[in-house]
């Protein structure tokens, strides 16, 4: 991945890699996909510990992925609660623009 890689391609490459590395991942939600400065992902994984909140981790940019990345792992039922606004997203994250990826979408 080159430095000038478009954030959309970078995010989709990262999402594909996440599916390859984690067999139990069901879906990945790219939150605020209109943002051009950082990538925010919700990874929906039934194996993640049950939590009634969203804990996002920060990963600094690096050569192959020159965008700050924030990743939170959540269980499928937490995603449903987020959609119903029963659980809040991290500060500044919205449901205004999001894309949902399944394994089939990125591995075909």
């Amino acid at each position, binding site marked *: 991945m080159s430095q000038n890689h478009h954030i959309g391609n970078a995010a989709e490459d990262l999402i594909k890699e996440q599916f*390859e590395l984690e067999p139990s991942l069901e879906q990945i939600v790219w939150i605020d996909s209109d943002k051009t400065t950082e990538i925010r992902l919700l990874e929906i994984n039934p194996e993640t510990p049950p939590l009634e909140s969203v804990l996002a981790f920060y990963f600094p940019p690096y050569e192959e992925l020159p965008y700050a990345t924030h990743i939170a792992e959540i269980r499928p039922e937490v995603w449903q609660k987020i959609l119903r606004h029963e659980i809040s997203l991290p500060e500044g994250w919205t449901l205004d623009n999001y894309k949902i990826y399944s394994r089939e979408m990125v591995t075909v």
Partner: protein
Amino acid sequence: MDIGQLQNLFKRDGYRMTERQHWQIAFLKQARSDWEAYQRTSPAVWPACHRLLFLQMASEKLGKAVLIASHSTLETIIQSHTAFVMFMRVAGNNQKLQKALGMKKAQQRAQFKTLLPLAHEIERLAPALAQGGQNPEYPWKEASGNILAPADYPFPLMQRLHQTPHGIQLLNYIEFFVKRFEELFM
């Protein structure tokens, strides 16, 4: 670069640390202090409960120090006791860590996965997660009706941490993260 050097660098460059950065540094300092306490409490002298309490606190604050760099609310982070396992689950995405460990992403993720059961055991030592059962801080009642003080309980987890390859590896990683936090996570 340690915390002092980091603070000096911020001052020198006229950079004003945000409140979240102050929180991150404070969590890191406390994680280091808890880890030092864990190492200094000799197993020959100290009951396992005290050592495990320090270990649980060090690992929780380590996870929280990483979490604070992202966008979760401080209230969510501070109230959570599950930061360490979540941290171990996603640490495979950290490129600096991969380079420092000389591993590929898949290798790193696979290796951290093998350590998750022990990380869970450490995390569940937090009294808030122990659901009235075994924990290193407060007495609990066993199914038999016996009431036990943590100081009287041998905590088999301690043996697994110090005498199995996964346990030793997990402790080595915690030490590595605590010592090289600024380089790996900031």
